[in-house]
């Protein structure tokens, strides 16, 4: 069942277009990430769903109710803010009770729901603390408890992990997913961190300058990015411009530099004239290997568990190669002559 529907949403500020042609359906219980660089319209979209921004055109539906022009306090949509926005003059308990009081829930029910939500987020012994007496991770949990206690129709996250340190961030990703599954609430998560989106979401919506660039599962986005923007944003750095040309009995992709790359025969066309290869899909091979591309290493960089090499090919094109550090595989140095190759199936044909 479709739970949240955004229909042809458009938001403009004067002549500036913030969001345009935005269509999205979210299923009940789904966890969807809105991914994009700053200024791509992801936060504006979230704020339209929460009711803080009114769309210039289009409709927002939650289940079978249109909420496009409903004021924020009349929508049962929980928003977790980037800075948590906990009320500094209230205890944890009072922060969580605030929404229940606003909804005129009876005192007995309030006590029970606050107790169980504190247990759910593991903060039972912190009820009487003030927000500034808690760590960043604990404040995050209070912000989450404060919206979960209202049993919202929809949970919205506005880059909630960006204020946490790296280790805690990874921990909170799992924590948020666990809570979301346990409660069974539908969630929308705004982030500019592709790793966060990949690890957390059931589905990712990649945004580019106010428009949807691609919607898909993390695997789809990762393996088959549709455009150069998406490919670039999720960390692919090797792009080759050119066109498919027939050659003898097969077809090759001929780059503008003259470099020829063998392609799988079933590829019909490449309308954008651009292909991409993930750095970790490229291997160093011996020079005799067929279809290998000779070149020279310009630069070698340590990335922790992997090495990153910048290779200049004989054609003048440059490629980035990532190789896992393994025993018996020596680290290469700048100036070394190498040959690189990748599987034909790993060539990604991009669209414009």
């Amino acid at each position, binding site marked *: 069942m479709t739970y949240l529907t955004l229909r042809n949403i458009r938001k403009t500020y004067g002549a500036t277009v913030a969001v345009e042609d935005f269509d999205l359906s979210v299923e009940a219980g789904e966890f969807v990430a809105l991914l994009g660089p700053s200024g791509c319209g992801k936060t504006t979209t979230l704020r339209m769903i*929460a*009711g*803080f921004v009114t769309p210039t055109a289009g409709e927002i539906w939650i289940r079978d109710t249109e909420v496009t022009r409903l*004021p*924020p*306090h009349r929508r*049962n*949509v*929980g*928003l977790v*803010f980037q*800075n948590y*926005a*906990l*009320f*500094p*003059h209230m205890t944890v308990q009072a922060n969580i009770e*605030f*929404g229940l009081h*606003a*909804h005129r829930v009876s005192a007995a029910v309030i006590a029970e729901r606050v107790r169980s939500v504190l247990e759910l987020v593991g903060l039972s012994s912190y009820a009487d603390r*003030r927000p*500034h007496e808690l760590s960043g991770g604990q404040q995050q949990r209070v912000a989450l408890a*404060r*919206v979960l206690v*209202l049993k919202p129709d929809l949970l919205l996250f506005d880059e909630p992990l960006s204020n946490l340190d790296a280790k805690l961030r990874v921990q909170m990703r799992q924590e948020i997913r666990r809570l979301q599954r346990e409660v069974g609430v539908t969630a929308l998560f705004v982030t500019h961190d592709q790793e966060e989106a990949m690890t957390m979401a059931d589905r990712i919506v990649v945004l580019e300058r106010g428009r949807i660039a691609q919607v898909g599962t993390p695997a789809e986005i990762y393996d088959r990015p549709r455009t150069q923007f998406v490919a670039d944003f999720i960390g692919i750095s090797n792009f080759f411009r050119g066109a498919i040309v027939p050659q003898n009995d097969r077809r090759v992709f001929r780059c503008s530099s003259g470099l020829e790359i063998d392609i799988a025969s079933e590829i019909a066309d490449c309308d954008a004239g651009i292909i991409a290869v993930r750095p970790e899909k490229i291997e160093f091979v011996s020079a005799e290997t067929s279809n290998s591309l000779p070149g020279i290493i310009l630069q070698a960089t340590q990335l922790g568990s992997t090495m990153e090499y910048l290779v200049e090919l004989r054609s003048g094109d440059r490629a980035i190669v990532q190789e896992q550090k393994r025993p018996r595989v020596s680290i290469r140095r700048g100036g070394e002559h190498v040959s690189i190759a990748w599987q034909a199936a790993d060539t990604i044909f991009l669209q414009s």
Partner: protein
Amino acid sequence: MKVALRLVNVAILCYLIAPIVVVVATAFGSRAYPVFPPHELTLVWFLKFWATPELREALRLSATLSATSTALATIIGTFSALALVRYRVRGKAVFSVVLLSPILFPAIVLALALLVAFQRVGLTQTFRGLVAAHTLLITPFVVRLAMASLAEFDPSLEEAAQNLGAGWWRTFSRITLPLILPGVLAGALFAFIMSFDELVVTLLLAGPELQTLPIRIFNYVQYSSDSTISAISTCLIAVWLIIGIPVYARFLSVRHSGRG
């Protein structure tokens, strides 16, 4: 260098406190005119203040007038500040200047303007007229200090409250107001003192029936030189010590102890 700075500090402090010391000391002096230091101690001037019906009546009038004006100024000032900081008001800069103009004009200019205006609508020599004039004079102080508090206030807290289901009034009364209260109270305190102290405008607008304490004192010192005025001043200083200082300590120094 450090010693020199400390000496300057002490000198400034003495300069500020000296008049207060002299006033309080003369209030207890037994001579028929103020002498410093007093020779003999007495409470006769306090008793005289209390026994003079015009002075007691003036104190009551001033307290009522200042309390009413301060209450009005606090409400108007707080909402004006909210509008100026929070919303994109058309002509915000103009509105802001107009709202603060009573501070910028000389009191006597304002007094004449109000006199002319109030005569048209029959507000001169009325309590309502004085309340209107005082409210006008003191609202800018509330606006200024409330605006300063609001500038530090995180607007996402209001959004969070709305997101949790709170309407406009609940958001304001439970979230915004408690968090800007130090600024609002500071403004109200300043406003009350300004109103209680006001002489020029009140003198022109008040009739014979509406003699505030500053007017009575002004008149009193013109033909009398005993220490009753020192006694009144001492009482006001005492009230300030008992009410003002604790309010100041409780609410106005909150900013230094962080958000809490």
